[in-house]
């Protein structure tokens, strides 16, 4: 195992995060605060409780995941896309690193950033609402699992992308709408049919509800299904990345 190599990539990526640390951390703090003002205060005053949980607290897991999905994809995709863009990818490709080691370095760093951002949002939410966590270890594990899964997805997108525009397409046009429509700010149970059934085809519903269960011990869908969907998505991302390294697709000519 090339531990020095993994550490080099990890440090390099964290240094990139460090150069924009205030922007990286202030943006989620301000965004979370704005969501609380809009949803928590304006809308929350009209709907005091959802599934027995105060509305302000109810939206926190969804808010955290909303940021984690987009930040994970953005950070991980930029991490591998930038060397391709600047041409420094030659060094990575010629280094004695296995695909696993390369992914550990890049995705490990991107996951760390996402978890930090998630925790910052969690801390910011505490300023607005009382926020107990029913299953803290499960919450931490689920947070890391989802962050790592979306970072793997972002890493694959970074290799797939041929330009900066393509880096933005999936997080902005696919993931964010799916998150908004996936029960980040509401319970799926309050939707009328057929929207309720249609919504259940959105895999993000299961991710958000699984994470919400770790906070409040209640969920719109079964915890097993939530975990299953997360693991399936993780497996799909791993399969895609494995195929990329095996074939050299968009990495090697």
């Amino acid at each position, binding site marked *: 195992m*090339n531990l020095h190599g993994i550490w*080099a990539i990890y440090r390099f990526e964290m240094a990139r995060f460090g150069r924009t640390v205030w922007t990286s951390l202030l943006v989620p703090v301000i965004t979370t605060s704005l969501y609380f003002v809009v949803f928590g205060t304006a809308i929350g005053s009209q709907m005091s409780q959802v599934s027995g949980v105060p509305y302000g607290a109810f939206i926190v897991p969804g808010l955290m995941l909303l940021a984690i999905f987009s930040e994970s994809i953005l950070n991980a995709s930029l991490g591998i896309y930038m060397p391709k863009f600047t041409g420094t990818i*030659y*060094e990575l*490709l010629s280094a004695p690193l296995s695909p696993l080691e390369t992914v550990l370095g890049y995705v490990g760093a991107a996951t760390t950033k996402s978890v930090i951002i998630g925790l910052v949002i969690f801390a910011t939410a505490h300023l607005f609402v009382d926020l107990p966590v029913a299953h803290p270890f499960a919450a931490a594990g689920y947070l890391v699992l989802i962050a790592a899964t979306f970072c793997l997805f972002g890493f694959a997108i970074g290799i797939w992308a041929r330009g900066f525009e393509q880096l933005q397409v999936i997080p902005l046009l696919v993931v964010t709408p799916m998150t908004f429509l996936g029960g980040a700010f509401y319970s799926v149970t309050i939707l009328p049919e057929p929207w309720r059934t249609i919504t259940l085809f959105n895999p993000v519903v299961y991710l958000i509800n699984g994470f919400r269960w770790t906070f409040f011990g209640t969920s719109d869908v079964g915890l097993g299904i939530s975990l299953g969907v997360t693991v399936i998505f993780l497996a799909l991302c791993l399969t895609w990345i494995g195929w990329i390294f095996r074939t050299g697709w968009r990495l*090697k*000519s």
Partner: protein
Amino acid sequence: MTDAILSLAGVAKTYAARGKQGEVTALQPVDLDIRRGEIFALLGPNGAGKTTLISIICGIVTPSAGTITVDGHDALADYKQARRRIGLVPQELSTDAFESVLATVTFSRRLFGRSGHSAYIEQLLRDLALWDKRHARIMELSGGMKRRVLIAKALAHEPEILFLDEPSAGVDVALRRDMWKLVLSLRERGVTIILTTHYIEEAEEMADRVGVIAKGKLLLVDEKAALMKKLGKRELDLALVEPLAAVPAELAEWKPTLEHDGHTLRYVFDATGERTGIPSFLRRVQELGIAFKDLETSKSSLEDIFVDLVGEKQ
């Protein structure tokens, strides 16, 4: 060859042709042994396949066929051991603009599986006149300095083989001379150096052996001196007292040419041949009453040989 540090057997590369059926051959099968500690120059015009060949060896491009052995390690099956031994200075100035010199060189060393050895890196940066700039961001450096940083990055993990892909591209004369000195000092330390270039002067100055590649085909590999001896031609120039309008028919046997508006009569001969033809040529010139005030011989440069081989002017 017994002491080959790098061996290529049938290494080839073909690409699927874009928008067409069939394949494009970027590199025809190459068999080549690089000796430990030598400086090997791979000469060829732009697009000849030089960068493709070294990119395959370094793991950047996947070969379509063939095997590569680096110091006894198969470059595909045992790629980690193979790659640890190789350093690459790319042709393009590809750098992380926001990183400091020290950080980027340390990054390279770690990437290749070595700990951040500060004493070695300090010496390396001092050797490359980069120590004073160690905290400068790469974006603040001149093009020449960036080229040095790339060399430092390639040497950071103490490779046994160093590839220099067009090291003189876009480099001023002073830096080129400095780089040549560095290459020679690396050779003294036992580093095997493979450089690609289309500057003949570079190969002529430094190389022990020369390979000539054109249109994806390795045309020949030989000792630089032997190559020049084998393929080198000499020229005999007679500075005429009176210019000639045309080469006299009586000299046709020697196929001389007129240069400098008829003021010079040039006879090209094979220096390695048993008979150069010079005495008979001079006798015939005298018999024809062609007076000359001076005579000079010169040997062909590697560039002349290269042009002959590749069949196109650089």
